[in-house]
C-alpha cells in the first residue's frame, strides 16, 4: 500500500521550499507565505489505503466505506481502518467485507469488533456508566468556564459602580497623599 508515500515526500519537499518563502528576509513570516504553506501541506491529510473493493453491490460498498471509517485500527490507534496500512487492519477490512457479503447488519459488525477489541475500537464509544465522564466533560467544562466568566464580569461591574469604602474625610486625605507622592516622584 505504497501510493500515499510519494505524495507525502513531494509535499515535504515542496513545503520545505515554501517554508523558506513563507518567511521574509527580515525573518518575519508573511501571511501569504503561511497560507501557501498551509495549502501545500493539505494533501498530506488526503491519505487513504487503496484496495480493490470487491463487494457485490453498491449498497454494500457504501456501508463498507462507512464502517471502515468508524473503527479505530487497534494497532495504529490514531488511524481508522480506512487509513491504516497495518496487516491487522487489512485483515479486519477483509473480515468486514466477508461479513457484509454474508448479510450481517451494521450492528452485528459493531458487536463483532467490540467483542474482540473492546469499546476503544469505536470512535464514538457507547454512552454507559464508565463513559459518562468522557461524554459530559466537554459540556461541563464549558459550563464551568461560562460560569467563571459571568461571575468575573459581575464582580467587575460591581467594582466600578461601587461606593468607596473609605469615609469622605479619609478619601480626601488619601488623595492629598497620592498627589504628594506623585510630586515627590516627579522631582526626583
Amino acid at each position: 500500500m505504497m501510493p500515499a508515500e510519494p505524495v507525502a515526500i513531494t509535499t515535504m519537499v515542496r513545503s520545505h521550499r515554501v517554508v523558506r518563502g513563507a518567511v521574509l528576509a527580515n525573518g518575519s513570516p508573511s501571511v501569504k507565505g503561511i497560507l501557501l504553506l498551509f495549502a501545500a501541506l493539505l494533501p498530506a491529510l488526503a491519505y487513504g489505503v487503496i484496495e480493490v473493493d470487491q463487494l457485490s453491490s453498491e449498497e454494500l460498498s457504501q456501508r463498507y466505506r462507512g464502517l471502515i471509517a468508524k473503527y479505530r485500527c487497534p494497532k495504529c490507534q490514531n488511524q481508522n481502518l480506512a487509513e491504516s496500512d497495518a496487516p491487522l487492519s487489512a485483515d479486519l477490512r477483509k473480515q468486514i467485507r466477508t461479513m457484509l457479503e454474508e448479510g450481517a447488519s451494521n450492528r452485528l459488525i459493531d458487536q463483532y469488533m467490540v467483542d474482540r477489541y473492546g469499546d476503544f475500537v469505536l470512535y464514538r464509544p457507547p454512552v454507559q456508566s464508565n463513559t459518562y465522564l468522557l461524554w459530559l466533560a466537554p459540556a461541563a467544562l464549558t459550563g464551568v468556564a461560562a460560569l467563571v466568566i459571568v461571575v468575573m464580569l459581575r464582580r467587575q461591574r460591581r467594582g466600578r459602580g461601587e461606593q468607596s469604602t473609605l469615609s469622605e474625610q479619609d478619601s480626601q486625605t488619601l488623595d492629598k497623599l497620592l498627589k504628594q507622592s506623585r510630586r515627590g516622584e516627579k522631582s526626583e
Partner: protein
Amino acid sequence: MSERLKLYLPLLVFAVLASLLYWGLGRDPRELPSALIGRPVPVFTLPALGEEGRIPGNFVVDKVVPMQSEEGRSVEDRPVEKSVLTQAIFAGQVSLLNVWATWCVSCRVEHPYLMEIAATGVPIIGLNYKDENAAAHSWLRDFGDPYQHNIVDAQGTMGLDLGVYGAPETYLIDRDGIIRYRHVGVVDDRVWATKLEPLYRRLLDAPDGD
C-alpha cells in the same frame, strides 16, 4: 481563611494534577485491555505445528485431543500424532497462550524467558500467528521449543477472535478454558514474577469449577 484558601488553591490543584500525571507516566497509553477477560477461549479448529523440535522428556506425554469441541479432561495419556487442535486443549490445566511469529523481533527476545518458564513446568501453548510452517520449525529447532502445542493460525483468524493486535501477546488461561489475563509485549522474568506468576499460582490452587 478564605483568603488563605485562595492563596493555596493553585498549589493544591497543581499537586493533584502532578500526582495524576506522575502516575500516568508509568502506564502505556497504547495498551488495550483485553475484551476477552473472563470469557472462554474462542472456538477454533486449526492445524498443529507438528512434533518436530520438541524437547524430549520435558513435558507430559501428549493428551488425546478430541476432534469435536467437547469439553473434558482427557483420561488417556498416550502419545498421539495431533494434526488438528481445538479449544479443548486448554481444559484441565492452567496454561499460557503465547502468540508468536518468526517475523516478530520481540518474540525472539522473549523466547529464552519462555524456555525458562516452561522448564519450571508451566504449560505454554503457542499460537503461531500468520507465519510459515517451515520458518516456525527452523526457529523451534534452532532456539528450542517451550510449547506444549503450537497452533498454526496462518490466516490470523484465531488472532482476530482473540483480539490480538500485536505480537507477542501472552494470555493466562485457567482450568475451565477461561481467559484470565492478557499481557501485551515481551514476557521477561520481571513480567512473569510480578504480573503472571502470582495469578498463575492462584489459579493453580483454585478449586475446580471456579
